[in-house]
């Protein structure tokens, strides 16, 4: 595994597009967090007296996780580019020819998936602490941090979808379009239709499962949540999607012509 990570490092070390996108994706998190906190504090002070300050601990964890879940798609794009590059340059073949097993190729891309997710969690955690300290009025506390972990899980689901699309579609352009379309619209649309015509089960779609656990704080407090499964159901759903996605990626890479 060390050898694989070292090889992946060599691939991106001098790849400017990668670093630019990574930086942008990471900056968006604190930027988004601070922007919302600033606007809200400025404009809605009356409301916050009513429902409490969403930027104080422990509420800040949910608030920030909820905001972050809207602005994390860039990491998916980054992963798609790392995957489809290999197909564009046909280096996916060359890596195997030169002496990787096919599964090593999957490990290499799973490494990025995990690394991007962890990096995001760390940046999101630091950003939330800063927001809580600056805009909140209670001392730092990790009570309610589980919302960040739900966000982390949702991020992994999102990255698994990106990886799967990249491996199946192989071409950067089409993969990005499909991913963005699913991420921004399709998942919500299907959720909406399912919830309307079938029922609560509509909340169990891949990205929606995470969203169900990350309601926007103020809304969540005001809207009754009767059409809702227990938390563990959504967590289980997300774990199933991750396992299924990674299984499909392995199957595709191990079985098909490269």
């Amino acid at each position, binding site marked *: 595994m060390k050898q694989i990570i070292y090889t992946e490092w060599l691939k991106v070390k001098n790849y400017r*597009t990668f670093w630019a996108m990574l930086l942008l994706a990471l900056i968006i998190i604190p930027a988004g967090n601070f922007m919302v906190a600033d606007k809200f504090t400025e404009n809605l002070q009356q409301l916050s007296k009513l429902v409490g300050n969403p930027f104080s601990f422990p509420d800040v964890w949910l608030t920030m996780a909820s905001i972050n879940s809207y602005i994390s798609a860039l990491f998916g794009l980054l992963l798609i580019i790392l995957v489809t590059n290999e197909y564009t*340059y046909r280096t996916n073949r060359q890596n195997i*020819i030169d002496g990787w097993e096919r599964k090593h190729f999957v490990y290499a891309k799973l490494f990025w998936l995990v690394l991007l997710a962890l990096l995001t969690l760390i940046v999101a955690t630091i950003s939330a602490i800063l927001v809580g300290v600056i805009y909140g009025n209670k001392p730092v506390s990790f009570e309610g941090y589980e919302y960040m972990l739900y966000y982390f899980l949702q991020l992994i689901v999102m990255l698994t979808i990106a990886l799967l699309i990249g491996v199946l579609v192989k071409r950067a352009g089409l993969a990005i379009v499909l991913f963005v379309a699913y991420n921004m619209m399709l998942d919500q649309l299907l959720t909406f239709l399912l919830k309307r015509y079938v029922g609560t089960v509509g909340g169990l779609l891949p990205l929606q499962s995470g969203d169900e656990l990350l309601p926007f704080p103020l809304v969540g407090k005001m809207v009754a949540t009767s059409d809702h499964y227990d938390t563990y159901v959504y967590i289980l759903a997300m774990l199933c999607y991750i396992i299924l996605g990674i299984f499909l990626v392995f199957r595709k890479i191990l079985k098909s012509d490269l």
Partner: protein
Amino acid sequence: MPILTLQNISKRYGAVQALAGVSFEVPAGSVFGILGPNGSGKTTLLGIVTDVLKADTGHFTLFDKTPTARERRQIGTLLETPNFYHYLSGYENLEISAAVKQRGKDDIARVLDICGLTQRQHSAFKTYSLGMKQRLAIAGVLLGDPEVLILDEPTNGLDPAGIAEVRDLVRRLAGTGKTIILASHLLDEVEKVCTHVAILRKGNLLLSGAVNEVISRNDYIEIAAADNHALQSLLLRYPGCTSAELNGGLLKVMFAAQPDAAAINNYCAQQGIWLSHLQLRKKSLETAFLEITNTPVQ
């Protein structure tokens, strides 16, 4: 120990039978040419051997073992096109090859030098000419000095000087006892270096084995006299003569077996025709190849 043994390998792409039950063996130390026109299945075959393609049926061994990445790491392979990261330099690309092959970087300078890329090693791959890309791919093959090389159309995109250099390189490597598997549709490329061949056409293996055993390349003679027409009818009566064609001022005469120039000279003299020209020639591989590939598949 055979380096590569193929047993009944078949592969189909939709309606196209890319390979149909191909079996042969590549002995250690041979320069093994895989010949065939474009689309005959050469690259598909090598793709299966390097695990980028999956065979529908059949199996193969490398170094007498079930092939894994470990076996592939001992083989330098150029398959079809140079595959490199466009945004990285030649040197950085070879660093990646070295890492995948689990070898150190200390060999990179040597292979860049052999392939004449030392000057441009730090330029991005995307700025390379077609010939330079091909050279970098060959540098990648040579990395770590492997005992077995697989070269699929190695002279693609090279200029005449580059082609001669690669041919020379293959011959030098063969001279050091390495096994080289060389796929090509350029026959003179193969003719000059190969000890063994396998000939493919439309996915069928037509024949395989040592060059001299499997391709009958009887010599022929070029001959001339004052009256070439008389000479032609005379030679057609000569035992073992299969054809005598007038070609310019010379008569090209083929035989079923190896011709004996002295006996032919004697025969003509006895019949009162004095030769002004007599030369023993070797049938080119190209002619032999066309004869083989033009016969319909049973």
